[in-house]
């Protein structure tokens, strides 16, 4: 489902004397449907960078990032957009929404974009929010005023609203209490069971052991750090 | 008494030729506003300078002129203009619609049907029907050019939204031969149906705005409306109190301080002719 080979990335800081910072070289990764791969490595080793590159958020310098047959490293923007809508989900650590939009609609939006009727999309969003223990009285409110943990759960609900065949999870269980952590982990299990290919970053070791089929240390892809 | 100090009908021949060319162009393109080099006239703008110039360019020594203001031959504006042409052109004048060959009018079409060979000259204050909604002349010209007349209906829409009906009761916009939208000058909408298929030549002159437009005889003129709010040529629901006419346009006249009022034909010639042949209304003087 996700095939990465020989992926390189560097940042050029034009406004700081054109400094070139190589951050990744020769990265390779393969994730099959139903498989969950955990990215590990020290802070700054490039876990998030790799994940953002898979999502098309960071531009690859060279190499291939194939997701469901689309090479994200070379695809036209609108192909990436289509991929993100239908195939590739992403739960980031940050919730970025239009202020004042109700939580229920924030969660339903990925389905609405796909043309799912509004009532069905909202029903699905309600199920997820209830499961993640977001009190119903908060659903009509914008999540921008929520606590960190609540925002994180809204973000997860949004990321799981559509059954993406491929999912990127950046610290999905951080800042969650035991109950909600358990809910999220079982949601990940269910996604795997329906055949989703998942790439995740988990600092929480217990979570990592519970859902990851194997681990990939990105330190090996970091120029200067790789031996 | 003709004043020999002026050329026939006041304007010099070159000016009249210029105006006639504008008139001919207007006749050739019914409803289209033809620019012309309007002259200073010995009367203020708003008193019919456009109509007077058109009349001047049309008059021949053998013509018989009638001038009306709001249908009446005896109001200041009508009397002044009639005297003006008597003095500068020495033409015959009349109050009888049927006898006139040229009729200059402000705000009315005579009740007596016009015939072929007659010319009806309208005084026009603002020739551009789109002006109140679109202040830019460049844009309104473009809209006429491209037949973009949706805006005209916005005006009528606003009427209905505000008053429950099309409240425009005069200067009601019309479409000429399915092409140009035209302001018929501030005639009451009661007169609008008379614009269409009229046997006379109808000429419109706007002096201050320097525009002339025309309706050749038997031109099709349609008043704009909505499917569910069709055009209606309304008038006061009364008969003339002097001649008893039920189908003529009426003026309301307050007769005392106690709310007393009467309705009389606005067309004085029409009313007088009817009385002359014995028609009587509610308030007609007793026979002696």
């Amino acid at each position, binding site marked *: 489902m996700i095939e990465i080979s020989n992926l390189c990335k560097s*940042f*050029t*800081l*034009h*406004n700081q004397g054109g400094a070139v910072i190589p951050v990744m070289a020769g990265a390779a990764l393969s994730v099959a449907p139903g498989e969950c791969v955990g990215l590990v490595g020290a802070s700054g080793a490039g876990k998030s960078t790799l994940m*953002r590159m898979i999502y*098309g*958020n*960071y*531009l690859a310098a060279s190499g291939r990032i194939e997701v469901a047959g689309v090479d994200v490293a070379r695809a036209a*923007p*609108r192909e*990436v*957009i*289509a991929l993100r*809508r239908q195939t590739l989900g992403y739960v980031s650590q940050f919730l*970025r*929404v*239009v*202020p*004042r*939009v109700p939580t229920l609609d924030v969660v339903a939006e990925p389905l*609405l*974009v796909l*043309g799912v009727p509004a009532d069905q999309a909202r029903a699905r969003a309600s199920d997820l929010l209830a499961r993640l223990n977001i009190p119903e009285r908060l659903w009509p409110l914008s999540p921008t005023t929520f606590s960190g943990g609540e925002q994180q759960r809204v973000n997860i609900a949004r990321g799981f609203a559509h059954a993406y065949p491929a999912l990127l999870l950046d610290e999905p269980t951080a800042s969650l209490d035991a109950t909600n952590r358990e809910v999220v982990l079982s949601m990940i299990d269910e996604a795997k069971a329906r055949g989703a290919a998942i790439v995740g970053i988990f600092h929480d070791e217990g979570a990592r052991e519970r859902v990851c089929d194997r681990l990939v240390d990105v330190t090996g892809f970091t120029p200067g750090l790789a031996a | 008494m003709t004043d020999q100090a002026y050329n026939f009908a006041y304007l010099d021949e070159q000016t009249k030729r210029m105006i006639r060319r504008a008139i001919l162009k207007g006749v050739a393109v019914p409803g289209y506003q033809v620019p012309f080099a309007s002259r200073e006239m010995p009367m203020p703008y708003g008193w019919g300078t456009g109509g007077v110039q058109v009349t001047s360019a049309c008059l021949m020594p053998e013509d018989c002129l009638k001038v009306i203001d709001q249908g009446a031959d005896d109001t200041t504006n009508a009397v002044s203009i009639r005297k003006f042409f008597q003095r500068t052109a020495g033409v015959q004048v009349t109050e009888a619609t049927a006898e006139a060959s040229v009729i200059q009018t402000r705000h009315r079409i005579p009740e007596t049907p016009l015939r072929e060979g007659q010319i009806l000259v309208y005084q026009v204050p603002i020739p551009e029907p789109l002006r109140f*909604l679109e202040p830019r002349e460049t844009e309104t010209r473009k809209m006429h050019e*491209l037949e*973009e007349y*949706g*805006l005209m*209906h*916005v005006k009528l*829409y*606003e009427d*209905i*939204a*505000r008053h429950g009906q099309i409240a425009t009761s005069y200067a009601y916009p019309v479409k000429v031969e399915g092409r140009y939208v035209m302001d018929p000058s501030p005639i009451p909408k009661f007169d609008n149906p008379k614009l269409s298929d009229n046997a006379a030549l109808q000429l419109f002159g706007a002096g201050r705005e320097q525009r002339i437009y025309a309706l050749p005889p038997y031109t099709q003129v349609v008043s704009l409306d*909505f*499917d*569910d*709010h069709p055009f209606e040529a309304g008038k006061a629901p009364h008969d003339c109190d002097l001649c008893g006419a039920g189908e003529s346009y009426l003026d309301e006249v307050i007769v005392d301080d106690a709310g007393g009022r009467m309705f009389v034909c606005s067309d004085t010639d029409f009313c007088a002719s009817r009385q002359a042949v014995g028609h009587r209304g509610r308030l007609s003087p007793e026979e002696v």
Partner: protein
Amino acid sequence: MMEGSDLSIFAKKKPQPMASTAPLLRVEGLTKRYGARIGCADVSFDLYPGEVLGIVGESGSGKSTLLSCLAGHMAPDAGRVIFDTAEGPRDTREMSEPERRRLARTDWAYVHQNARDGLRMGVSAGGNVGERLMAVGARHYADIRTTATDWLGRVEIAPERIDDRPSAFSGGMQQRLQIARNLVTGPRLVFMDEPTGGLDVSVQARLLDLLRGLVREMGLSVLIVTHDLAVVRLLADRLMVMKGGRVVEQGLTDQVLDDPQHAYTQLLVSSVLQV
């Protein structure tokens, strides 16, 4: 001429699939000079159905000139602007003026930064929304009013305000009215020039939410010019960065903002005040 009873076709439009193969708008080598000075130079891009393209840059970068040239308000000196009309792709520069103006009031819409430029301030809200309908031949008052009422609702203006003039509206309401007036004929391409400029932050958010919903429901393609990076992040699928009349970078909105490649874009992104 369209019959009044057919107004319902404007009420809702089916979203068009994102992956549609033919671009709705194809721009090739568009150039506009003001004497020796460059307005915009050699701009090329494709816009597909349902796509929102943001154009950002500082004042004087040529983004407004570009929008004016694309919308036909200004004649470019060179280049082609090919729009996928009902009769197939046509260069709008080669259209006759009546054709272009017809396009401007049916398939296209233009939302001005200042609502006063896009509204008739002396005409009621209903008349403002109804004008485009009447311009394409609607002649049934009740139908026009029903459609206008529906649209006021869609842009969150209370139906009882239908007979009020825009001068009695707040800035945010005026902007929403302008959007209703533009979208009532179900356009396919919308030009927006700083649509949230000059509005309070809370009003901006409401407008952005509304625009997102309409874009999704109607499958609109949008070209939005703004200097507000937060606005494009929330609204635009793709981003074009302009400087000195030229496009210096374009790509996915979040990619351009999070991983800018060009020196100017890096400066632009790093100059945004964080809240």
